[in-house]
């Protein structure tokens, strides 16, 4: 069964294009997708996933497991940075430990989207409200990361400007990707509720293009994450080990929580992926502003160079196998 899942994942267009991008870097091809084209795809994917989540939310309503699941997701995004910090602090200074911890508490939207595509290909259902969980997990992780710095560093040592809370909260709650995701979710909800004609006319853009655009974007993500690989030497074996172990442990915890919440198989996988993935968009932006002492090459390289490809290639089929083993089929 598991080997079937592995194959299903490995021969899917998004994962194959991801490999192609990595390969381009490894063999030294000059293939590049120049800025700001990758941004076009990432904005599109956020908009589309939010819109789809909103309309599914409107169809399924807010009752049942929705509130519980979202609360659990938010709690996970606060818990993960705390435990990660304790582990990371053994080798890194407070700033770097807090920044890496925040990245792992937060999420990777592309990993989530790839997981949704994986489920679609497997014909496994999932719920639209999981996108709301995705959107709501970035901010708490960022805030916990900064509280850790505040608490762990004696104020007089924290030289320079104090962290401005207003700027920080804006960064946590209103950074572009969180804002676009939440906004599109609300728009999808409203359009589904009040404008069926509008919904139908959005369909080709939102749904038909989606899979191809994801594949194209993963080509770029493959290039970008392979470019990060050589930064890893500086990160050292401890951090690389963390970047592989963390998703496994967090996915396992996610599985336990998903089972406790009686989530169906599809939602359980998505919940695990949210716990297992690490942020390389909202978190770096927030950390640069509020913990400039931390070294970006550490937290970006681990999240983007190790954990992201690990989740996409190894994680998805592995987590799905765990789901099929432990979560009763619908």
């Amino acid at each position, binding site marked *: 069964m598991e080997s079937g899942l592995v194959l299903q994942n490995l021969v899917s267009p998004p994962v194959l294009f991801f490999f192609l991008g990595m390969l381009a870097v490894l063999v030294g091809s000059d293939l590049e997708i*120049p*800025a700001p084209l*990758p*941004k076009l795809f990432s904005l599109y994917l956020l908009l589309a996933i939010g819109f789809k989540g909103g309309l599914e939310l409107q169809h399924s309503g807010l009752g049942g497991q929705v509130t519980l699941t979202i609360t659990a997701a938010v709690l996970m995004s606060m818990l993960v940075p705390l435990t990660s910090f304790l582990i990371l602090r053994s080798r890194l200074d407070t700033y770097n430990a807090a920044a890496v911890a925040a990245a792992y508490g937060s999420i990777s939207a592309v990993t989530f989207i790839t997981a949704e595509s994986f489920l679609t290909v497997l014909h496994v259902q999932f719920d639209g409200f999981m996108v709301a969980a995705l959107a709501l997990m970035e901010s708490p992780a960022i805030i916990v990361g900064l509280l850790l710095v505040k608490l762990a560093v004696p104020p007089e040592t924290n030289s320079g400007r104090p962290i401005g809370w207003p700027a920080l909260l804006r960064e946590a709650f209103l950074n572009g990707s969180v804002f676009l995701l939440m906004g599109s979710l609300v728009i999808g909800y409203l359009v589904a509720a009040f404008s069926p004609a509008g919904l139908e006319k959005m369909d080709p853009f939102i749904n038909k293009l989606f899979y191809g655009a994801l594949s194209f974007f993963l080509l770029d993500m493959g*290039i970008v994450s392979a470019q990060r690989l050589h930064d890893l030497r500086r990160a050292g074996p401890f951090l690389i080990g963390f970047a592989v172990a963390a998703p496994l442990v967090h996915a396992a915890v996610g599985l336990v929580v998903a089972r406790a919440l009686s989530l169906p198989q599809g939602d359980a996988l998505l919940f695990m992926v949210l716990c297992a993935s690490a942020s*390389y968009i909202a978190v770096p*932006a927030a950390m*640069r*502003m509020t913990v*400039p002492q931390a070294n970006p090459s550490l937290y970006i390289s681990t999240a983007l160079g190790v954990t992201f490809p690990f989740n996409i290639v190894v994680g998805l089929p592995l987590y799905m196998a765990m789901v099929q083993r432990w979560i009763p089929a619908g």
Partner: protein
Amino acid sequence: MKRLDLLLGERELGPICAALRTSGAPGYSVMRHVTGVGKGGEVQESMEMSGYGANAHVIVFCEAEVLEQIRAALRPLLSYYGGVGFVSDAQPL
């Protein structure tokens, strides 16, 4: 007359430009999408897609007195967030 070249993270452009305006700079120009290497390591184009952001290059032509104001306003920002500034001589065309 002086010429100031600033190289810094594009995400700090907001406060930096505000500081230039309040320091009395008669004008400034900004180029984004700059990559480079400095004390803080390498900044690649792919950081633009991640929210970390690439660098920006800011050029200011101003009188020496204004430059003093600018220096005072920018120093804390550059030393907290990183980024470098260099000064040379210039005359209007």
